[in-house]
């Protein structure tokens, strides 16, 4: 059964049709929530809430459209609401990152791509929430420009211009606060970061 058929069944109240859809998209929803909130328990809560809300509003969903952008849009909104209540904590984290730039020495000791990716995430966390959302969707979750536009409910051209500005800001942050990510490394040609 394809996705649109499953959605139609689920919209008619067939919960067994909803389960494979949840399984298919739970990782993306959980990961986006985790990226936005930084806490796995919160991310799990948001992911659960996302699928329950989607279930409750399935009748209004256009089954000709892909499900994932819609789910990510719900998760993003829920996570933003959750962030507001935890805003001060996150701000404190942001300040901490800004005040303590990553030292080259500590990274060299643990010079793995995973650690660098973790520092990249910290750098992205210092961006505004809208900038974070668009960077996470496009680069961390690997959505296309069209899918990103669908999640954020904006035009594709707007996605491109917002991404360009967000990347400019991110590059500045990396150069200022995460110099280790901007340093040349051996064997980092081509796709390497």
């Amino acid at each position, binding site marked *: 059964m394809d996705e649109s058929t499953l959605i139609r069944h689920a919209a008619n109240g067939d*919960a067994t049709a*909803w*389960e494979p859809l*949840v*399984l298919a998209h*739970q*990782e993306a*929803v*959980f*990961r986006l929530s*985790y990226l936005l909130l930084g806490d*796995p*328990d*919160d*991310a*799990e*809560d948001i*992911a*659960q*809430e996302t*699928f*329950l809300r989607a*279930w409750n509003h399935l009748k209004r969903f256009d089954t000709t459209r892909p499900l994932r952008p819609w789910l990510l849009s719900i998760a993003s909104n829920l996570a933003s609401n*959750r962030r*507001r*209540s935890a*805003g*001060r904590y996150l*701000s*404190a984290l942001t*300040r901490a990152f800004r005040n303590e730039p990553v030292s080259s020495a500590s990274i060299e000791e643990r010079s793995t*791509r*995973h650690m*660098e*990716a*973790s520092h*990249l*995430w910290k750098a992205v966390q210092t961006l*505004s929430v809208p900038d974070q959302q668009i*960077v996470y969707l*496009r*680069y*961390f979750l*690997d959505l296309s420009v069209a899918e990103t536009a669908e999640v954020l409910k904006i035009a594709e051209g707007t996605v491109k211009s917002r991404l*360009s500005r967000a*990347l400019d800001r*991110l*590059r500045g942050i*990396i150069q200022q606060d*995460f110099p280790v*990510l*901007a*340093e*040349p*490394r051996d064997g*980092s*040609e081509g*796709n*390497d*970061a």
Partner: protein
Amino acid sequence: MNERNKPQGGHRDVLQQELFEKQLHSLAQELNYPRTPNIAGSVMTGLRRAAAPRFISRRLAWSLTIILILFSSLMFIPPARAAIIEFIQIGVVRIFHAEPTPSAPPDQDIPSTKVQVTATSIPTSQPLIPILENLAGEMTLEGAQKAVNYPILLPSYPPALGQPDRIFVQEAEGKMTILVWIDPQKPDKVLMSLHLIPPGSWAIDKFDPRLVEETSVNGQRAIWAVGPYPLRLRNNDLQFTRLIDGHVLIWTDGDLTYRLETGLTLKEALKVAESLQPIKP
């Protein structure tokens, strides 16, 4: 993220952007995520329990527990016992009532709805400028405007007021701006302060002003609280002390809550509130 092999020529910026994007995408894919929990199982269980109340998130459960503990603790404090029963909400500021007792309100010269609240002993005034020295987040007005995502409005009344002497931006579940004007006649005293509080700081509480009355600023509901009282944020560890021994006018405009501390009368304070204008370049 390295800047090696920077391309030269007319398309350098575009190529650099493409390279940066490529590197960003590549590195982002390396991020370690926690194992995805069994969301489907939880969701399906939740759906099967359709007749039962919806499950409560961990955070919500903790929040409810903490609220219950706070509520129970407050019940042991006599003034707070009545305060729990009733409060006034204006924007993000919540003013708790204590047991009503009659007291004579000063300087009321416009019609308004008055609510009596318990008069309590007022803490002895302390030097105010040292308090300012302890406030975090001081910056220039220009820096403050860049730091917050809402327009900082300044009073144009009284005409000679000018720009604030001290500006602070503090994290209080949203970036709160505090503008402070120093009394030119008494450089160790604060003449007036204006807090611009964004949404989210829902639990700023005041206890026991001598009088609280409803009024309006630009046609919007506002609260005038007479008499000095401690101000604090309940939802985090910030502890705010009043900056002046005056009164407070609180009103909202859109998402923002404004809190004006002043020794002026209500009539004058309203003029100040209604004179707010964007920063002039």
